[in-house]
């Protein structure tokens, strides 16, 4: 059985960054289930990646290539086309069972970085009913068809959900000659980044219909039409607003779910808000020490730059991991927030700063994020003109501010107050 200090699971942007930072201090193995490294970036041929990390607009494959080049220079063992079938916790280590075309191998490691990414919610999970023809795809699958295989998923497309991949695909399919009949979003606000609404829909005159969903699919062999219906605030259909839209393809961009089946096997407790593990600021699981998590497996990010950043944090801490007792400070968030990562603070880490990734539930204008300690003292505050759920906020805060408190409270207040 081969031994490593750190095993990184997943060779996408999070895993690559984790492997690089881990390899500085630890013997590292990177396991990737696909044939090539790069994860989902391989099929994201649009630009906009890397503005924060590299200061330039890159395509997905270019961004991945930069990391792959960095990996080459490091002392990292890499196995691709390899699938983890089992992971077990031992006394001080973990055993990982891997299957690939040369057989079954087992590895032992002191810590594991989970960088397994996410999967897309499916038509059935958003309760699209009706008939079951060919022609219903998640946006990621449609993107694979178009960008990797070189085939259009269909001619006349309807897109449900205004998530970023859906918006990107609306533009992509239009450029390839398909007719995108519209993007329908059940919520009253778009789910994707504003820049994508402008660059992918408005620039191409693709209609966006808010508070409208797809309720039924028609077609026996192939999709022939879909029924759209307007919904009220509680997502109930409004009778009489049904419309039939002719289309041969229905593309869904209705949300991403972090893939944490490996974490679940280890009994890691997960946050129902992020659907990723509860972690501290070293991105280590709070209940299974030695397991770190980053990227979209931890929570669904809006920018790949942040995915890489969390990978770097997780990799570095995994390499330095020693099984010692932690004292954790709980982060309590108010109702206005969708989630905050990390959910706990371990004051005894090396970093000077703590990075918080935080999202609001609804659009807010002119607000202030306030962080208080257990004595109700304001330790941090920051004003925002606008906050939107699709756009994640990143806060970098000096760790010293969280000394000597058993919990911290993050709340959202009116931005007009002078503090």
């Amino acid at each position, binding site marked *: 059985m081969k031994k490593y200090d750190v095993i990184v699971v997943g060779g996408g942007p999070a895993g690559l960054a984790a492997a690089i930072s881990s390899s500085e201090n630890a013997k590292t193995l990177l396991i990737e*289930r*696909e*044939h*090539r490294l790069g994860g989902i970036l*391989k099929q994201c041929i649009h630009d906009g990646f890397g503005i924060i990390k590299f200061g330039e607009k890159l395509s997905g494959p270019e961004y991945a290539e930069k990391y792959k080049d960095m990996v080459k220079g490091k002392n990292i063992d890499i196995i691709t*086309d390899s*699938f983890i*079938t089992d992971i077990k916790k031992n006394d001080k280590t973990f055993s990982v*069972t891997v*299957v*690939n*075309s*040369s*057989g*079954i191998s087992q590895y032992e490691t002191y810590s594991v970085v989970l960088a397994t990414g996410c*999967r*897309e919610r*499916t*038509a*059935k*999970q958003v*309760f699209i*009913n*009706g*008939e*079951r*023809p*060919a*022609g219903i*795809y*998640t946006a*990621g*699958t449609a993107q*694979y*068809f*178009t960008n*990797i*295989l*070189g*085939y*259009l*998923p*269909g*001619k006349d497309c309807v897109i449900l959900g205004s998530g970023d991949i859906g918006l990107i695909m609306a533009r992509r399919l239009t450029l*390839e*000659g*398909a007719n995108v009949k519209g993007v329908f979003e059940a919520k009253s606000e778009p789910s994707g980044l504003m820049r994508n609404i402008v660059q992918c829909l408005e620039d191409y005159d693709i209609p966006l219909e808010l508070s409208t969903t797809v309720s*039924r699919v028609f077609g*026996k*062999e*192939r999709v022939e039409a879909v029924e759209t219906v307007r919904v009220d605030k509680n997502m109930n259909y409004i009778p009489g607003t049904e419309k039939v839209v002719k289309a*041969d*393809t229905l593309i869904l961009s209705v949300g991403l779910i972090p893939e944490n*089946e490996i974490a*679940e096997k280890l009994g890691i407790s997960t946050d129902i808000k992020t659907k990723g593990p509860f972690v501290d600021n070293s991105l280590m699981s709070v209940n299974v020490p030695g397991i770190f998590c980053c990227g979209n497996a931890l929570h669904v990010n809006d920018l790949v730059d942040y995915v890489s950043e969390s990978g770097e944090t997780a990799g570095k801490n995994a390499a330095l991991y020693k099984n010692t007792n932690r004292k954790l400070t709980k982060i309590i968030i108010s109702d206005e927030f969708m989630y905050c990562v990390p959910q706990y603070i371990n004051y005894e880490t090396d970093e000077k700063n703590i990075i918080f990734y935080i999202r609001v539930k609804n659009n807010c204008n002119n607000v202030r994020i306030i962080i208080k300690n257990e004595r109700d003292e304001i330790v941090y505050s920051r004003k925002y003109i606008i906050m939107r759920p699709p756009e994640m906020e990143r806060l970098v805060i000096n760790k010293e501010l969280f000394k000597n408190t058993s919990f911290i409270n993050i709340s959202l207040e009116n931005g007009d107050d002078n503090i």
Partner: protein
Amino acid sequence: MKRKIDIYLKKNIGKSATSSEYRKSILLEGEADSWSKIISAGKYAAKFGYKGVINKISLKGFSEDYISKPDFTDGKFNNYNTDVLIIGGGIIGCSIARELSKYNINILLIDKESDVAYHTSSRNDGMIHPGLVPKPGTKKAVYNVRGNYLWEKISEELDIELHRTGSVITYDKKFLNIIKPFLKMRADKNGVPIEFLNKDEVLKYEPFSSDDIVGGIRLPTAGIVSPYKATVAYAENAAVNGVVFGFNTFAEKINTVNGEIISVETNRGKILPKTVINAAGVYSDIIAQMAGDMFFSIHPRKGQIAILDKKYGNSLYSILSRPNLNFHSDTKGGGLVKTVEGNILVGPSAEEIPYREDYSTDYKTIISMISKHEKALNRINKNQIITYFSGIRAANYEEDFIIEKSDYIKNLIHAAGIQSPGIASAPAVSEEIEKLTVEVLSVYKEVKRKDKWINRRFSSPQPLKLSIKDRGNLILKNPDYGKIICRCEEISRGEIIDALKSPLEISDLDSVKRRTRTGMGRCQGGFCTPLVMQIISEFKNEPLNSVTKKGHTSFILGEKTKEFTGDDLNEKV
């Protein structure tokens, strides 16, 4: 009798409605304004002891029913002579084909779809019912109990998983006391073992059963198979023994002379059979009528089923239900079944519909089933659903199987009206049809058993179910078993290629899915669909956009975008 039926029809359907005695059956005609009235009329007429109810009352404004069928014609089976023609490739047709393959006769099985188990046989919960529910003395009762017994042998011969888990039905006290003596009597009459359990005993079998129950009954002979894998197994074993499978072959017309079928016209030519077996499921009444033997009607009864994520599978061990005291509930019956793969199934519902292939699902039914059955098992909820589907029961108004030689057509045999518990009964139904066919065919030729009949079939390897050592050795022999394509169900490239190489020629995504379970997991094919398509396209040496979801014209892809210049972007599978 007829007078009573006429009065009923006038009162409930309208003046236009009439009945007439046709041979030994009763024929209903007219026009009604609702489907439920038509069903009620058929059910009413079934009470009078006619051989069958032929319900031709039409629904006002009803446009023609959709039939999925091949969109081409060729001469593949033109003037094709066969001793036996089986119409229908569900589990009934395939099991009959397999049993008859032990004789020195030619057998052709035709199905309008691109594979076996395309309709009802892949759209049910796979339960091997113990046989308590059917009324004593009915064909259902006899064949169900016998079929349940035979599954032991069949599952071994065909190398398919049979989980004989038993089933548990829980009750609150009031209900149990009323029904207990009745259940015991029926179980004894049908020959079904039954155990009465107190609450602790229930919890021993199903520890997560909701604890506001006081007891239950257990039927130890209940079991589970994968219904589509079982159908495929029967078909593959039949094919190995010489049965010819004609897919995409649609029976359009049956020609008879002097009460004898002389030919069956299809889109692929005129087949000349000595005997014909009607195993056409929801279309079995139409086939019977085509052959001039109209005596029953199928009224499609839809059942919707929800599939929960495997990772919540450990809250159930077997088959669990908690009958509802409210008999007017719109989701009658059903329960929770743990599949051989470990998912929990919730359902099915029971809805009378005018369409024979309407597999649509609806939110209301799915949610009401979840809320109904979470009373039996609190741990389930709607967030665990990964997908749902529906199937159509081929119900006749007599609500019993039709397993017999035709009264009017010499060389026609019916295996019709087979609905639940059809999977459970299949081995017994095919055993009986085998006897009947040999009798009928012996008039035409000498029927003898083959010297060499291969009664064993072996499933191709399932690496996931092997020990680490065996799995490793398997991969050493064939590295394709180490390349995982479907990550949710952990299915390798090797298994997909095995499916494509199997004795039945298949080429669409759903056919691969029925054999390997690719795309059946929580991502519902999001990741593996393009990869499986590439394997199919490579194997068949056909372009990617010729691959279909489910045969016919269900193409997955449209036009090509552009040519690649470098091969770097070609994802290797």
